[in-house]
């Protein structure tokens, strides 16, 4: 079975590396990291991820900007995006899944457990979310 390709975009190298270590240690994930958000599109075109994890607050291009660029790109516009953000709080989230739907899409509040991240990715890819 081929691995699920995840593109993690976050300005903090420690954050993407940590996600990579944790998700990859689960076995079925391959994670590529982007820390300079202006490189997002180029990396995505090369890596062809199944799903993108996108930090909201970043210098230069923020999460919203990157999402827009992805949408404008014919080859990338169908790739599902999950936002990760430290801006919302847990009590904003509905009780069963730790998510918030905002205008931009689904938000996962930080700090987030790898378990939650994994389940969000799986549910998104299977079309539940």
């Amino acid at each position, binding site marked *: 079975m081929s691995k699920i390709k995840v593109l993690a975009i976050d300005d903090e190298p420690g954050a993407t590396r940590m996600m990579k270590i*944790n998700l990859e240690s689960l076995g079925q994930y391959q994670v590529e990291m982007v820390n300079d958000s202006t490189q997002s599109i180029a990396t995505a075109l090369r890596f062809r991820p199944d799903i993108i994890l996108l930090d909201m607050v970043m210098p230069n291009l923020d999460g919203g900007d990157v999402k827009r660029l992805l949408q404008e790109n014919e080859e990338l516009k169908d790739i599902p995006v999950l936002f990760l953000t430290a801006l919302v709080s847990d*009590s904003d989230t509905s009780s069963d899944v730790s998510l918030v739907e905002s205008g931009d899409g689904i938000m996962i509040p930080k*700090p987030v457990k790898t378990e939650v991240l994994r389940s969000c990715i799986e549910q998104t890819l299977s079309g539940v979310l």
Partner: protein
Amino acid sequence: MDAGGDFSEKFGLKHYQSILDNLPVAVFAKDATDEFRFLLWNKKQETISTIPRQRALGRTDYDLFSQESAQYFREMDEKIVRSGKPLEIPEEILETGDRDEVYLHTYKIPIFDHDRTILVGISEDVTETVTNRKALQKASRTIQAKEQEIEKTQLQLIQIAKLESIGQLAAGVAHEVKNPLNLILQGVEYLDRTITEKDENTAFVIEEMNHAITRATKIINELVDFSTSSRFDKRECDLAGLLDGVLLMLRHDCSRLDVQIDRDFAEGLTVHVDQAKFEQVILNVVINAIHALRDVAQPRVAITTRKSTYSDERSEGVRTGKQIRIGDPIVEIEIGDNGAGISPEHLDKVFDPFFTTKPTGVGTGLGLSVVRKIVELHDGFITITNHPTLAGAMVKIVLPE
């Protein structure tokens, strides 16, 4: 023309009466040497006192007025006669049969004539002036009271503004703190997963770190709740369903401590609330109750909901937004417990941010501050008292219907 002759010589005494009767003031005279019987009683005095001249002449104050008034007049009259000097009484009350109180500005003048002493009185009806002044005094007292109220409200607003700025600061700080927390959380997770052979100490360290992260996240999130309140998504919610949902979340804690839950829900009540935020409200309050029930023999939590009309003027609590007024339809939610209750000196502090009587790590003291803020942003208010019958605390949440 005869310049020397005076009025009485020319026209006779009877015309004096017509002059007196046309004066705009009341004039009367009493014979001080004959029990102060009235000798003179002009038209204006008739109007003011509502007593006709025929009835008054030859009578005393005791025949015309109440014992109390008559005595007051008599003492005054005797004093004037003794002193031999005129007296001005800026304000005195004359009781009359059918009119309300009449206020008089009176001059009393003693006139000594051989062996007789006459006491002349001249009174002006100042009722209107006095009533106006009293109304003014009352108005100014009301204004003063209102001013005090405004001052108090201002203080409360300052307090709210302070909380608001804590919230804004927290929102900024939260972002900076949650990112490192995220790293620590995932780092601990990684260690937990990869260190397969854990000795007792390693297991303890990892567990404690996980607890610490959960605590820090909880505090940050609660602080942020102060500032994110504008993002409310209010909908019509079934109140009983919402409460049962929260109780379901707490079922493990309840059964572990053997807490009996008494539900008394009015049928078909709906409330207009942000469901997630309002669940948080109920959750915080019920968790407080459960905490208070730790060492209680037969722990109970009683939750009552009812539709009502607001009538209790005494309920304290800051009310912001649309105030609930007497007579407004309301929904009441009461959550009582039979725990230890709240000591009187703590009652007005429990809503303060960071006020807690719980050990560090157990309580941060933000629970009720968040609760109150959320309730107020729903145009309601919340009170906490000691329960009249259950011995523990009782939280009452009032929302407009």
